[in-house]
């Protein structure tokens, strides 16, 4: 291989205009110190022309080559029938992963529903314990602090305490009087009277 031909190829690679053959030629010649020097010079010349910032003598190729030297070459192992088998295996594992993903996704959904059920079961107890939004039994003692107000209770703190139990009772009783569809409105009304 003539030096001129190589330099031409090098230039072509640098300008991103090299064909497959030229690229191979350059890569094969990369181990040659002289070629690498030429490559570096070309880069400097190019950087000067483009007024680019340049890190001179940064020989990445050498470092990569050194790293690669320790590696075994996998391409040779996977040649032949094993290669296609390997590809098949990859395809199969991808399919499996997709299927598993779908399955898992569905399971997630199911689990989610179950969780929702569970959480509703748990919440059966939780709201009773959860304090602030709830006036347990709406008893007299709660009137000392006033009802759970959204804002700060001002003026006459007794107004809502006087009115709300009556309103709640009237609503519940009226609903109970009107509804025969079940004993539910009656039970609601009765629960307000339990002090």
């Amino acid at each position: 291989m003539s030096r001129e031909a190589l330099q031409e190829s090098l230039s072509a690679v640098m300008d991103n205009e090299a064909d497959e053959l030229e690229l191979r030629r350059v890569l094969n010649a990369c181990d040659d110190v002289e070629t690498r020097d030429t490559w570096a010079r070309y880069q400097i010349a190019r950087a000067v022309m483009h007024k680019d910032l340049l890190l001179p003598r940064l020989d990445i190729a050498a470092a990569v080559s050194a790293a690669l030297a320790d590696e075994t070459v996998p391409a040779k192992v996977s040649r032949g029938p094993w290669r296609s088998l390997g590809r098949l295996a990859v395809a199969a594992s991808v399919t499996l992963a997709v299927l598993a993903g779908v399955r898992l996704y569905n399971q997630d959904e199911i689990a989610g529903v179950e969780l929702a059920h569970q959480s509703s079961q748990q919440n059966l107890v939780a709201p009773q314990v959860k304090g602030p939004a709830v006036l347990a039994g709406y008893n007299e003692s709660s009137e000392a602090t006033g009802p759970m107000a959204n804002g700060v209770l001002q003026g006459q703190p007794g107004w809502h305490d006087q009115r709300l139990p009556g309103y709640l009772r009237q609503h519940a009783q009226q609903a109970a009087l009107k509804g025969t569809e079940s004993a539910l409105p009656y039970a609601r009304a009765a629960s307000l009277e339990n002090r």
Partner: protein
Amino acid sequence: MRAIPLLTLVLGGWFVVPAHADEAQDWLTRLGQAEQQQSFQGTFVYERNGSFSTHNIWHRVQEGKVHERLLQLDGSAQEVVRVDGHTQCVSGTLVAGLGDTPNSAARAIDPQKLKNWYDLAVIGKSRVAGRSAVIVSLTPRDQHRYGFELHLDKDTGLPLKSLLLNDKGQLLERFQFTRLDTANVPSEADLQPGADCKAVNLESDKASAVKAAQAWHSDWLPPGFELTSSSARKDPQTKTQLSSLMYDDGLARFSVFLEPLNGAVVADTRVQLGPTVAVSRRLTTAQGEMMVTVVGEIPIGTAERIALSMRNDAAATTQ
């Protein structure tokens, strides 16, 4: 390839859902009929935030007349006796002037109407009070009402269990039979009110009540809610005129109370008591400051919006 199971799934869902909805509708129709046709007696529990109580119920259908007696078994002996949906006597404190409204007759559950506001579906089977039940879910189509889960008796269609759920699926209240006997018809003695059950006289100043309450309307109501009754009465303690309006969507109900403040300085409040919410908002009218309070089994945001939407027609015409 994957499209095929997906397609069958989608198509399958398409065909299955209406069938379930129809089935649910049939069950709700059965529920509506059951209480008009089926005699029973039993014990049920009621549970909500901070309250758990047990009750007995005697329900007799004879010659087209429905007699019903309910008695609380723990704590005070709360009692109600009803004949054909009209309350005969009540123990404890009954709010004065209550029920003296036109069309105060009970309305039966109407699945056709409910279908507009709830997704009806049969979601499974269960066992309540030793009886097999069908679970019918009523999922709200908007955020303005709560969902119900009804466990209906397979034999009779009676509600064995009823759960009220908010949008997060949290349980707000539970109504559940622990014993139900549909074989033995309650005796006359079972239906006799106790000594503490005070007779209810629902005839009072009907005309004026309706007139006063009709001066009010809401600019906005959650879809499906209709005014079912309105009343006005003078509070014996405060000597103020209290108007009340009641709305329902065939299942959920709320009341609106309107009371003049007479110069009192009162803050707006919100209270949640189990399934029931109470929201108070001040409203300035031509007659002075009023307090609007919405009480009902509806989400707090909806109650808030209703409270803000109440208008006085009388004020509007005089302005």
